[in-house]
């Protein structure tokens, strides 16, 4: 009976083969990254109309960078839905790309994880100093007083897009107050023909947070007090959220189906097809609409109006920042890459392609040939945009308040009237969750 050992030996050998085989194929990875051929891994965010669109825009620029410096860049375009998660994963594990884009709303939250390289004065000098940047954009990079862990790349603001033809046919002017927006929208709504006044991406958590913030600021509410404590149940905050939800609930100017749009691009589709006459979106909406077959001459842009007597705030300073991962083995190369992306020349090229606003003063906004639109966006950014609070809890704010608003919109869409008390209860719960977590 000697035989068993053999069987056992086979199983042990099998294990060895498994491990050996794995080892062999694993070494194909990025081991030999000596000084001669540095390859940076870059996670780009989904700025364009599709991931493919992003690759088309970025690839020639990255090749230019390789020509200039000899540094190769491995590009990975990550959808927004995965970007936060993947960045988190990278932060937890210490294993990530060398350079990555982040939404600037997340800048402070990510800074608090300590996973990203802080741009101290010396590092800032390497990318040309902070005075090169537009002040409002740079302010979004992180709380004052500590070196920021991200550098602004593309700036954006929200605006109201309106369909020129639909407005002209009905003899309407773009609204100047929120009340006008609602009454205009009601005139343009005809559910029988599936035409609606406004489209919103009602199922999208981050956009719901954006509008809650903007509208509560219009009502003088604030999401956080000076000490950074959540004040979601302030009267202004409740009114602001109600104003947004009422588009679906009381005013009924939104196709209820929009409550299921979990991506702002889906709302763009409705607007481009003429199924909705108005659409609130960021600057990059121009590019998204073009990809959907709607040219800039077909729509106009005005600031999102505030209620009569309210504070004229129509956006926050939105945008995308670029960060260097702290564990990078190629810090110098990464800094060179950030310097390249924020150079005047690249800023002009990239922001034109993405129809966003440059973050450096040396490049002019040129995302459209339409001077009127350029001016509208520039005015909003300069006069009507209020930065989001720079506190670490902003990610939780987005998850809790954004999530609560999505649920309220869902309720409104399925036919339940949403009262002020419902809004208050939802916000109260969101606030309690902030404390508990």
């Amino acid at each position, binding site marked *: *009976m*000697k*035989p*068993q050992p*053999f*069987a*056992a030996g*086979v*199983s042990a050998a*099998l294990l060895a083969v*498994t491990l050996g085989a*794995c*080892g062999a*194929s*694993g*070494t194909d*990875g*990025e*081991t030999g990254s000596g000084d001669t051929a540095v390859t940076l891994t870059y996670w780009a965010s989904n700025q364009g*109309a*599709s*991931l493919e669109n992003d690759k088309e825009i970025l690839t020639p620029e990255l090749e230019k960078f390789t020509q200039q410096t000899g540094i190769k860049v491995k590009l*990975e*375009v*990550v*959808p927004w*839905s995965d970007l936060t*998660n993947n960045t988190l*994963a990278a932060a*937890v*594990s*210490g*294993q990530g790309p060398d350079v990555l884009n982040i939404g600037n709303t997340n800048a402070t939250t990510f800074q608090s994880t300590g996973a990203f390289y802080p741009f101290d004065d010396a590092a800032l000098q390497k990318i040309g100093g902070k005075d090169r940047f537009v002040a409002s954009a740079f302010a979004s990079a992180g709380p004052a007083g500590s070196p920021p862990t991200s550098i602004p790349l593309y700036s954006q603001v929200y605006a109201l897009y309106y369909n020129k033809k639909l407005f002209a046919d009905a003899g309407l002017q773009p609204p100047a107050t929120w009340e006008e927006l609602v009454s205009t929208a009601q005139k343009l709504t005809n559910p029988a023909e599936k035409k609606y006044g406004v489209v919103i991406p009602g199922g999208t958590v981050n956009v719901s947070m954006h509008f809650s913030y903007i509208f509560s600021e219009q009502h003088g509410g604030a999401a956080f007090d000076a000490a950074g404590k959540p004040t979601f149940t302030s009267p202004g905050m409740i009114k602001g959220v109600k104003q947004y939800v009422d588009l679906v609930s009381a005013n009924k100017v939104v196709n209820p189906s929009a409550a299921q749009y979990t*991506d702002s*691009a*889906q709302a*763009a*589709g409705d607007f481009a097809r003429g199924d909705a006459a108005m659409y609130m979106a960021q600057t990059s909406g121009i590019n*998204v609409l073009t*990809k*959907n077959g709607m040219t800039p001459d077909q729509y106009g842009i005005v600031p999102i109006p505030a209620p009569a007597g309210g504070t004229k705030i129509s956006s926050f300073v939105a945008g995308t920042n670029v960060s260097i991962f702290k564990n990078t083995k190629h810090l110098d190369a990464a800094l060179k890459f950030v310097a390249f992306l924020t150079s005047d020349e690249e800023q002009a090229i990239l922001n034109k392609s993405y129809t966003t606003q440059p973050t450096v003063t040396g490049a002019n906004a040129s995302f459209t040939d339409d001077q009127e639109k350029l001016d509208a966006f520039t005015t909003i950014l300069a006069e009507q945009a209020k930065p989001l609070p720079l506190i670490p809890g902003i990610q939780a704010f987005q998850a809790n308040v954004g999530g609560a608003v999505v649920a309220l919109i869902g309720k409104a869409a399925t036919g339940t009237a949403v009262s002020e008390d419902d809004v208050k209860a939802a916000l109260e719960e969101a606030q309690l969750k902030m404390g508990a977590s």
Partner: protein
Amino acid sequence: MREQLSFRIFRWVVLVPLAIFTAVPLYVMVTSALKPLQDVRGDFQWWPTNLTFEPFVDMWSTVPLADYFVNSVVVTSIATLFSVVIAIFASYAISRYRFRGRGVFSGVVLSTQMFPGVLFLLPLFIIFVNIDRSLGFSFLYQTRIGLIVTYLTFTLPFSIWMLAGYMNGIPRSLDEAAKVDGTTAIGALFRIILPAARPGIIAVAVYSFMTGWGEILFASQLTNSDTRTLSVGMQSYATETNVYWNEVMAAALVVSVPIVVGFLILQRYLVSGLTAGAVK
């Protein structure tokens, strides 16, 4: 055998609704895959009016479906192969040996069936990353190997349990007879047990393959754009401006056909393999 009328009525009351319930989604998949985009965007049409094969062409370019397909095939096949072989050895030990720790081993293996995936997703991922860090290169994290190791382990408990049950059902007198004839234990495993356990082994392989092919949670966290598998990649059709429902349905059809055909060919083994573990 004569059947009562009431039973015959019962039969049709059961079969007709179930057949409709099962078949309608399949019908929707096949017909929608043959419609142009505007026809899946408006009201649902029961009968496709404008037949087109374009979704089957376009689906490869809308998302890199071919890459996902290759990843899924590689990961799932290798994981299945190793899972089956490892399970054969382990279940042979459990079925034919008495050894200290046998109960503990069986108990631990089976209790993993109660582990919620969300609990060890993050730890697993951190362990993978740390192994990579100490090795100095990408070995497990966001690699196919990492996913293979994960999937093969996921299917091990059920496979070991099923195969041990199956082997317990193979009379020991067979191994004994072989041994009397001078066959070694490994000889007995290969010559007696394996052929007799073939349905069980095939059942385990089918189960392992299906588990890996359809897993979503771990695939979404443990892969990157190069190693993404179908289960995660398929969702890319819906994240962009349009939901390309016709292409989604075409892709669903294409990724399902191989596994459904394979399953249907091997199902009779699955039937006998499954019950052996449970009943015997």
